[in-house]
């Protein structure tokens, strides 16, 4: 991180999806205490059809998971998706967490050709775009775990 960007204010693009501020940010999921079903984000609640005592708890997903699949998007998504500067193709992956849920997210920190199904990934929080106030608007991303 350059000194300038370290000084820039960083704000989650949307709150409640990952722990922030944090030096070890995690995705915030939700789990049923009765049927054990875990999902993400915490507003998307799931139960087994026969679950009778739907009592919920927030759960922080593990820092690490395994890449089950991925793609590289070569064209800019519709304008709901914001990014700085010119569009560059980027990878999106599905990462399986030990809590029993697989989450989609942008992949960073490696070249697409280095990606392999089954590789270990970790959750980080990074800039998505610079907002109108000049702040870094953040999202969760996945990065291959360096050996």
């Amino acid at each position, binding site marked *: 991180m350059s000194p300038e960007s370290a000084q820039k204010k960083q704000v989650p693009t949307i709150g409640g999806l990952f722990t922030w501020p944090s030096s070890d940010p995690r995705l915030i999921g939700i789990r049923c205490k009765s049927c054990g079903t875990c999902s993400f984000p915490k507003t998307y609640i799931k139960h087994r059809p026969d679950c009778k005592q739907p009592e919920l708890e927030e759960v922080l997903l593990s820092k690490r998971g395994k890449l089950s699949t991925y*793609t590289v998007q070569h064209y800019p998504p519709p304008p*709901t998706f914001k990014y700085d500067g010119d569009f560059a193709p980027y990878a*999106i992956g599905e990462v399986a*967490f030990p*809590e029993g849920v697989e989450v989609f997210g942008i992949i960073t920190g490696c070249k697409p050709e280095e990606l392999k199904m089954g590789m270990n990934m970790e959750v980080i929080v990074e800039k998505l775009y610079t907002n109108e106030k000049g702040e870094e608007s953040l*999202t*969760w991303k996945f990065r291959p775990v360096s050996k």
Partner: protein
Amino acid sequence: MKEVAVIGVGMHPWGKYPDKTFVDLGVTAANAALKDAGVEWKDVQSVASGVYQWGGGAGIVSGQQLAAQMGERGIPITNISNMCATATSAFRMACLEVIAGASDIALAIGLDMSPIGFLPALSEDPKDIDFLRWRMIGLTNPGYWAMECRKRMDMYGTTKIHLAKAKALTSKYGKLNPYARYKREFNIEEVLNSPVVCDPLHLFMICATSDGAAAAVVCRAEIAKNFQSKPVYVSAATLGSSLFGDPTARLGLLAAPAKQEAPLLSESVSAANQAYKMAGIGPEDIDFVELPDNSSWHYLQYIESLGFCGPGEADGMLDRGETAIGGKLPVCPSGGIGAMGEAVNASGLAQICELVSQLRGQSGARQVEGAKVGMAQTYGMLGNSACAILKV
């Protein structure tokens, strides 16, 4: 569902019509279906209309907009929104009207002008889970399909050649379909050389979005021959939703279960299984199928999900020519969504129109010889899917 017959179908050709409204397209399709059925607008006792979700307030009550142009008559109009399953849901609703005895003759219609390019978000509300995938990841619909496709390639050895072959085959039929948007044959090389959109899916392995409208007139089977010399009978019209534990990367979601406890595309499997049960037949009795080939991955996966072969075996069926017209199971003789382009809220009824045309033996150069039983199956955005089985 033996008591319901389709006596008329009609379409507005698929394409891009910036100078028309979705209602204009619908009126063309409705009038064509009424004419084909030999009935008049005044004979229609109810309408089931697909909601056009990119059409604002007017699109939500699409059936009322249609009635305004056709002439308002005070009849029941149900507007149905079910994403990809919308038009087939409208068809099912019209059939249920007849089965319930509420209508002798009912009209089902789907009408759409889908946005160009990637289908966009429908809200800017963080409580809308679907909005989150757009804002936080920029995850497009083909992005989901590409991730599933890569899994398939890893699991079964499906190659990009298979993906290209599927497009090459359906494009041959699209060329012969007067209602298709892309009347052009693609060869395997062209498909492989088209730009990568979401790796491993290339541009010509993914459907475009289109404008279009399609309609069907259904009635009590006993009176069908009063109007139509070649009625087609509805063996099943079903709706399926997802099963718990379905591992599919489901459009609009941020996550999927890590442990598989249900089939891939379980909403579609549910719709198809209900349809087989309702019709009292199995996959081996289906003469041809219109399935949702939104991408080449869908083409292969749906052949398996609908029970026409085992997991990973669709590639071989394609290689052996079994999915071609003249093969064991012709797939998408209309050219499919690949050649039509997806008009989300209308495509299901376009499939019904193709079934009726084939079953009447009116499909010309793309006719499936001796077709007696046809199946139409939709995809489903947020875990819904519709299926219909028609027969003569």
